[in-house]
């Protein structure tokens, strides 16, 4: 039987038979593939990065090309939370609460210097949380103040690779993703 790899990165192998084909693969791979192409982000912009997130959603960059356009206002319908902006001490419990309300599996992108490490507000401030990962676990970090829309798109694609690989959070390293 002729076995060939499909052009679409759909998991599994297509075995062509007269009048159709048979697909073999694992259910986990198929679920992860489907999940990665339909990640719904939560509308969570606290400051400047939110404007670049809106730019990414607009016609020029258009994140709906990758299945991210269904931005939800409620955490109960969202898959990924894009932390676009600074998290301060008063906001941290709210962020935790939002994260807890999201259904599993849930993913987190820290967009920009503030959400990554406190960024420009690292020194000499009394109210800024120095990185959102002090509050909730983060999957993908983006550098920049604010990051360009291309950087956000790259982060979204990186998250897709991560979701497709299906490995638990601790096992993923940069090297594995670039393969």
């Amino acid at each position, binding site marked *: 039987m002729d076995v060939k790899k499909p052009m679409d990165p759909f998991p599994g192998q297509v075995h062509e038979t007269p009048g159709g084909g048979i697909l073999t693969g694992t259910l986990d791979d198929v679920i992860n593939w489907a999940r990665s192409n339909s990640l719904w982000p939560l509308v969570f912009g606290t400051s400047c990065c939110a404007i670049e997130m809106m730019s990414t959603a*607009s016609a*020029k960059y258009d994140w709906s090309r990758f299945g991210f356009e269904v931005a939800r206002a409620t955490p109960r319908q969202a898959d990924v939370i894009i932390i676009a902006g600074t998290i301060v001490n008063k906001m941290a419990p709210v962020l935790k609460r939002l994260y807890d309300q999201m259904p599993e599996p849930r993913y987190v992108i820290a967009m920009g210097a503030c959400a990554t490490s406190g960024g420009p507000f690292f020194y000499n401030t009394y109210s800024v949380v120095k990185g959102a990962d002090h509050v909730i676990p983060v999957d993908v970090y983006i550098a920049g103040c604010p990051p360009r829309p291309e950087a956000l798109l790259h982060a979204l694609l990186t998250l897709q690779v991560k979701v497709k690989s299906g490995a638990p959070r601790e096992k993923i390293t940069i090297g594995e993703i670039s393969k």
Partner: protein
Amino acid sequence: MLEEIGTTEQGDLVINVGPQHPSTHGVLHLVITLNGETIKKVEPHLGYIHRSIEKMCESLTYRQFIYSTSRMDYLSAHMNNHACAMAVEQGLGLEIPARARVIRILMSELTRLASHQLWWGAMAMDVGAITPFFHAFREREMINDIMEETCGARLTMNYMVPGGVMFDLHPNFQVKTKDFVRFFRSKFDEYDELVTNNIIFQERMKNVGRISAEDAVSFGCSGPVARASGVSSDIRKLAPYEGYDQLNFTEALETAGDNYARYLVRMQEMRTSLSIIDQLIDNIPEGDFQAKTKAVLKLPKGEYYSRVETARGDFGVYIVSEGGTTPYRIKFRSPGFSNLSALDHIARGCKIGDLVAIMGSLDLVIPDIDR
């Protein structure tokens, strides 16, 4: 605080909006007391994005602190930088080259356009129309491209420094700006057709969220919010800076004081900005783009204040100097804070469904309010 949902003794319903809510344009928390559908009281809770910028500035030098102000009202980043640069120049007694003055005005007006475009898209989204958002961002990306070439950043530019601007204009600047002005002018008809003359939009906006001229003054409103009530408050006219007095433009004024008047004022301001750019784009003087300054700036002991008209209103910077390299105290007067303080007054008696439209017409930027 988040558990305040419930009813009062009089049987009024108390609900929370925010801090994470798409209509609050950031992280603002409103506690609303409702009698049926009618708003009895709106209580804003601030501090969800308080980054202690004023305190931080006390330990930054006069060159450094300007950068943190781009992150306050990020939609008017140039104007924030501008006010700070002017306050420092006032202390140093610096004379700014003519070229730098014109570049500053051009950049400020482009930023005002970008800010109002985003507001236009968001305003239409607040009353339920999604499409205008994409129209607005199409034009806004052109301004972002212009900014990127000259300033090196799309949003937080940090372009204005004490003594002038950081870099000279990019060779493409004039051509690209003219292209943009021509393109954007042709789009006003589309904007009017899509939103301004839309009967559904007008019904949502007219006679909703009124504020009288007296109240606007006593709440300290500025910018388009005050001008929609007939209060002349354009700093570009009242206290001209950087040569705005030599330009030919009129202040946009409306008298109705409702949501629709605030909408019309901002639409008029966009046209004004285009005409200012038209007047200057072919008349950029040759010369230096930055005055010569010392590497370390020290302001003489004293107090310095400067104000500019941002896209939201009167933005002021107050510096107290003890003679060192860092300010002793800095206070920012942000227009959003005063405009938000009028929200309770404006929204009382309105229906809960109109609250989002009122907030949209105030054009709040929360990091500007919380600082």
